[in-house]
C-alpha cells in the first residue's frame, strides 16, 4: 500500500538537500583557504554548476527508463553480466560512502562535543538511529526527512545570530585575486562538499513527477544547497579572517563559539548536534539503496539492511582507529566515487543512446 506511494515534489526536494548538505561544509572554508582563499565562494558556485551539468546528464539517462530502478537499469543497458559487475561497484560505493559519513561525523562529534567518548560508542549510537529508520520503507524515510529538515532551517536561523560579531567585508575583496588556477583547485574541494547528488540516480523510479518537473526539483535543490554552502562559507570568511581560517579545523563550528547571550553561551554546542542529525541521516538513504538492489519481499530487505549495517559498523571500527587509516580510506573512496558518480552514468548514457535502448511505454 504505502510502500508503493511515490515521492512528492517537496519530499524529493527536502530529501535531496539533506543528503547533499553534509559535514563537508564545516571543513570547507579551511580547505578553500589553502587554494582559492577569499575567492572560495566562486569555486563553490562553479562546483555547483558542475553538479548541475552532471545532474542534467543523469536526468537524460533516467528519463529513458522511468520505472526502472538504477540497479535494474544497468542490467537493462549493459546486459546481465556486465550490469552485475557495475552493480557490485555501485553497491561497494554506497557502503563505503555510508561508512565514510559515519566516520567523519563521529570524528566531528568527538572533536567538538564528546572528547573522551570512544568511537565505537558514538558510531554505534549514530548508526543505530539510521538502521532503525532504514528498516522501514522509502516512504517513511522520506517523511522522516521532511520533518528533520526543520533542523536545517534551525541551523540557518542560528547562523543569523553570528551577524552580531564584528564583520570585515574587506576580507573578501579584491574579488578574483587568487587567480583562476587556484579557483579551479578550490572547485575540486568544493565538489567533495556537494557530493550526495548521486542519490538522484536511485530516486527517479520512485518519484511521482517525472520528466521536466523532476529536473526542476533537482535543480532547485542543487541551487539551494549551493546557496547555503556559499552563504556559510562567506560568513565564515567575513567573520573570521583568512589567517584564522587557516588555523581552524572547523571554521563554521568555531564561528558560533564567541556568540553569547544572556540566557545561553556557546552556540556551537547547540549547532553541532543539530547539524549532525541531517548529516548522519543521509547514511540511511545510502544503506537503504544498498539493501534494496533486488526488489524482493520487504522482510528480506530488512534483513539486508541489518547485514549492511553490520558491515558498515565493522568497516567503521577498522577505519576510525587513526587519522592515517581514515585518510587512506578517504583516498580509496575518492577514486571509487569518481567512477560511480561520473563514469558509470556516462557510460550508461552513452550506451543507451548508441544501442537505442529505451523503456517501452507499457
Amino acid at each position, binding site marked *: 500500500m504505502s510502500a508503493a506511494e511515490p515521492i512528492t515534489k517537496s519530499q524529493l526536494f527536502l530529501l535531496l538537500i539533506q543528503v547533499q548538505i553534509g559535514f563537508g561544509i564545516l571543513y570547507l572554508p579551511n580547505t578553500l583557504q589553502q587554494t582559492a582563499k577569499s575567492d572560495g565562494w566562486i569555486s563553490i558556485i562553479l562546483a555547483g554548476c558542475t553538479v548541475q551539468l552532471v545532474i542534467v546528464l543523469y536526468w537524460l539517462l533516467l528519463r529513458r527508463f522511468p520505472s526502472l530502478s538504477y540497479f535494474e537499469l544497468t542490467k537493462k543497458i549493459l546486459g546481465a553480466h556486465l550490469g552485475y559487475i557495475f552493480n557490485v561497484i555501485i553497491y561497494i560505493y554506497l557502503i563505503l560512502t555510508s561508512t565514510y559519513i559515519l566516520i567523519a561525523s563521529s570524528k566531528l562529534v568527538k572533536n*567538538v*562535543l*564528546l*572528547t*573522551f*567518548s*570512544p568511537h565505537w*560508542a558514538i558510531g*554505534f*549510537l549514530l548508526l*543505530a538511529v539510521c538502521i532503525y529508520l532504514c528498516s522501514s520503507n522509502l516512504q517513511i524515510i522520506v517523511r522522516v526527512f521532511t520533518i528533520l529538515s526543520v533542523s536545517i532551517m534551525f541551523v540557518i536561523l542560528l547562523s543569523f545570530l553570528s551577524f552580531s*560579531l*564584528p564583520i*570585515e567585508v*574587506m*576580507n573578501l*575583496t*579584491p574579488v578574483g*585575486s587568487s587567480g583562476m588556477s587556484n579557483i579551479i583547485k578550490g572547485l575540486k574541494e568544493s565538489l567533495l562538499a556537494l557530493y550526495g547528488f548521486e542519490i538522484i540516480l536511485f530516486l527517479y523510479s520512485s518519484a511521482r513527477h517525472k520528466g521536466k518537473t523532476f529536473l526542476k526539483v533537482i535543480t532547485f535543490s542543487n541551487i539551494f544547497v549551493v546557496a547555503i554552502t556559499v552563504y556559510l562559507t562567506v560568513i565564515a570568511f567575513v567573520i*573570521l*579572517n*583568512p*589567517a*584564522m581560517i587557516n*588555523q581552524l579545523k572547523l571554521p563554521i563550528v568555531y564561528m558560533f*563559539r*564567541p556568540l*553569547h547571550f544572556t540566557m545561553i*553561551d556557546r552556540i556551537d554546542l547547540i549547532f553541532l548536534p543539530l547539524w549532525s542529525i541531517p548529516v548522519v541521516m543521509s547514511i540511511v538513504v545510502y544503506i537503504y539503496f544498498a539493501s534494496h538492489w533486488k526488489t524482493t519481499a520487504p522482510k528480506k530487505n*530488512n*534483513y539486508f539492511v*541489518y547485514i549492511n549495517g553490520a558491515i558498515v559498523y565493522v568497516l567503521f571500527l577498522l577505519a576510525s582507529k587513526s587519522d592515517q587509516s581514515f585518510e587512506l580510506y578517504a583516498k580509496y573512496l575518492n577514486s571509487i566515487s569518481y567512477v560511480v558518480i561520473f563514469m558509470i552514468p556516462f557510460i550508461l548514457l552513452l550506451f543507451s543512446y548508441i544501442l537505442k535502448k529505451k523503456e517501452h511505454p507499457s
Partner: protein
Amino acid sequence: MKKFTIVVSCIFILLSMTGCWDQTNLNKKRIINGISFDIDEQNPENIQGAVRELNLRGSGGGQFDLSDEIIEADGVSVSKINNELVNKISGDMDISKAFLVLVGEDLAKQESISSLFEPIVRSKQGYLTSKVAITKGKASEILSLQISKSPIAFYILNLFENAEKETHIPKANTFTLWSEVVDKEKDAMIPYIQKSDLNRVELLGTALFKNDYYTGEVLSIDQTSLALFMQGKIEKPPVMKITNDNEKTDEFSVFVEKVKQKSDLTVDKSSGKVQLTIKVDLYGRLQSLAGSPKKVTNQELDKKASTFLTENAKEVTEIIKEAQSDILAIQKQLNSKYPDFLKNHEWEKVYKEIEITPDVNMHIQSSSNLK
C-alpha cells in the same frame, strides 16, 4: 531478528551506562573567574600565572557565601602553568567561564600575545568571550584585589561592559583579540587598566598592539573614542567634551548619537606615497554649555567642535603611527584596493610615511531642554 536487536541495544546501553566517558561532576568543578599573566620577577624567562577561583558555598535558604581565592603558579609556558595550577586546585579546574584575562604590561611587551592565548583558543572549553586587558604594573596585583564581597573579576567585567557601552573602550574579548593578532593586516587595541590608590581598578584607556606585541603606547579614553569613531563604531551615545585651551568658559560637551565614517585611501603609484583621508561625521545633541545663556548658534559650536576634534584626531593618528599600530586596518584597505602594492613595498616603511588626514565634523542637531 527483533530479539537480536533488543539484545544488542541492551548490551550497548549497559556498556554506555558504565562508560559515561565525557561526564563531569558539576559539584567537583572549581570555577575560575579570572586569569592573569605576568613576568616572573625572580626568573624573567618565566611567566607567572594566577587564577582567581570562586569558592561558592550554600549557606542555606538560597543564600550562598563567596570565598574568592587567588592561586599562583609559574612556568615557561601557559600549558606548564596550567599543569601546575591543576595540582594546586582541589577539584577539576574549570576555565570554561574564566571571563577575565589580564596581562601585565611588561609581559605583553616581551612575550607574544598569541602564545599566551593559544591554549585557551585551542581548548574545547576555553571561554572566547572573556574580557582581556593590559594592566599597568603587575596583573596579579589587580586580580588579587579584594573589593568588598563581590569578586574582583565581576567588578572589572561590569566596569568594562559599561565603558564599552559608552564607546570609551573597544569591544575586546579573547576572540577579537585573537582574530586581530592572527590577522597580519590589522592590529589590536585592548583596554588598559591600573590599580588606583584606593585599591580600586581604574580604566586608563586602550593599549595599542603591533602584531603580537604590546607597543607601550596608550590612547586615553577620549582618544579611544575618537579612534573608534574613525573605525565607524559607536554604541550608546558617548559624551565628547570640547574644551578650549584659552578660555575655560568656552567648554561644552556633546552627546554623540550617530557616526558616519568614510575613509578614502589613495596611492600615488609613482612615488609610492599613501594617503588616507578619514572623514568622520558626528551627529549629536548638546549636553552642557559653559557660560550659561546661549549666545552662540549651533553652527558656531559645530565649527568649534570640528576643529577641536580634528586636532585631537590628528594626535591620535600621530600616536598610532608612532606605535606602528595599524588599528585602522589600513593594510587591509590597501590590500583590498591595491592588491599588488605591498608586494613591492615594505609595509613598515609605508606605514611610517603614510599620511593620515582625519576630518571630523560635528553636527549638533539639538540643544536638549534648554535653548
